[in-house]
């Protein structure tokens, strides 16, 4: 299955803005995606799956969009 990962703010540095991931066996939650990207779990302030705040161990399904933000400001 395929999921899309969107990175924001400093997470983009030396990575990407948006990328499609073909999920191989073993990667089933955002936790594994973070490990794959070398992003520390503790540095993620907001994790969205399809625009909804989600937990790091939430099982992913085909077509999910994962958005990751480090701590970011208010307005």
């Amino acid at each position: 299955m395929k999921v899309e990962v969107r990175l924001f703010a400093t997470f983009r540095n030396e990575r990407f803005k948006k990328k499609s991931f073909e999920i191989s066996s073993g990667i089933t939650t955002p936790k594994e995606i973070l490990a794959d990207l070398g992003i520390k779990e503790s540095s993620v302030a907001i994790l969205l799956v399809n625009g909804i705040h989600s937990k790091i161990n939430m099982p992913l399904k085909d077509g999910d969009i994962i958005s990751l933000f480090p701590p970011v400001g208010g307005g």
Partner: protein
Amino acid sequence: MYGYNGKILRINLKNKSYNIEKLDTDMAKKFIGGRGLGTKIFKDEVNPKVDAFSPENKLLIVSGPLTGTPIFTSGRYMVVTKSPLSGTIASSNSGGKWGAELKFAGYDVIIIEEKADKPIYIEIVDDKIEFKDASYLWGKVVSETTKILEDSSVQGAKIMTIGPAGENLSKMAAIMNDNDRAAGRSGVGAVMGSKNLKAITIKGSNKPQVYDSDALKKLSKELLVKIKENGVTGQGLPTYGTAVLVNILNEIGCHPTNNFQKSYFENADEISGETMAEKFLIKKTACFRCPIGCGRHVRIGDGEGGGPEYETLWSFGSDCGIDDLDAIIKANYWCNEMGLDTISAGATIAAAIELHQEGYIKDEELDGLSLEFGNGTDIVEWTKRIGRSEGLGRKMAEGSYRLAESYGAPELSMTVKKLEIPAYDPRGIQGQGLQYATSNRGGCHVRGYLISPEILGLPEQLDRFKIEGKAMWAKTFQDLTASIDSLGLCLFTSFAFGAEDYANMVNAICGTNHTADSILETGDRIWNLEKQFNLDAGIAPGEDKLPKRLLEEKIPDGPSKGWVHKLSELLPEYYSLRGWNKDGIPKEEKLEELGL
């Protein structure tokens, strides 16, 4: 006298005279300062039914007991008056350095009364007050006025001024200080303009006294650690400013687009904080004694200057369907030059575009400009026309409610109590919607920033769609914010600090015995005082509402698709928690309990 200077400067513009009066500090402490104290004095002295533009309306500039002290972000002042836009109490605050200088000059409050017969400005150097002719400044933009007055005043004087929008009585006019800081909302700049007061320059040589300097030093160290270790104040705001919110709000589908017709903007990344940092940012800037530094200094065409906040990127960007960051930055620049509230100005243009789309505004009225969602070419020109009150710009300068109403379509104005709602779609953020509806100054996000728990997860992550518990969160945030606004500090500190930290600060500086509870109780008192003023002013309790679109039209697409706001389910609990009756009127016993 600790924290407070104990002095009110009362100015009569008609007679060009002034008095220095003693501040009743016991009374002041009951309302802290800033927003609370200002509202108390204003309510005691001004008939709530007053026409906002009549000489009988007063303009109060109020510092907090912490303004100008060594504590962090203490550069704030508050403008309190009756709003010409909403008819409610207006309390609009600004950062920069002007507020601290007011304190150094020896005053807590300036009360400006009556109206000058021709344009003047006031020069304050400690206890020397002079009234000076401002005819040659009338019509000049903010940066030019500031430069002229900086050159002609004593060295180091700080400048507060209105731009052409305030002179032309635009109900969206701001009071500007230090060039690009704004007491933006509620049309306070137009009240200043109605008094023929162009500017106030100020310079002081006293430092406010601190009750316990050692305790304050120790506390400051602890608080600095909190600021640095908090993700938002230590990393988020310093790195990207508030602009970083564009992508967050868009990713959750609560980024109002095309005048709230939808809430997901495909091209949001083009106008995001990330893109601004990559393509326009020159350096970051900070207000008086601020270790956070959320301000952005950016490239503007061939020049440079203050950059847009999140709300501005939204109002001139997504809300108008525009993804041209260069144009938005220029529109922001012209808002600063004209002295316009960027939220209301952009949101009013968005409403005008929909009025045009729906055929209410005719092509003949556009004087050759375009007025369409997604067309950024002319937003800069519209901004200037609003500031100068030219052509259709004159109607727009009245704000989106009066504009839409004049075409018989008030439902197209996305306002609460005639104040434009900012950049967070309450249909997908239920608590924030309750906060908008009940805000004492109308559609405003900073009377209680529930985005913090509902979106950013601070101090804990709430489910943004749920209504359970949101009434309590709204009340608590509103009360705490009222106190922070009264202390003279920047609201952004509240990402890192709690009520107890504010109690510790005010105790170290003023020698008071505040606790977390008494800070919240004081906020509750201020909130009820504002509510009383509004009721006396004729704002009906039924005005705690949201535009029909947000209650009835479902968000059509994106991650918050299908949601509307459930205000009617939230209001009864909110009123009950506030100790108000079912119509939203404070009960006698509640007012007594708060000593009102």
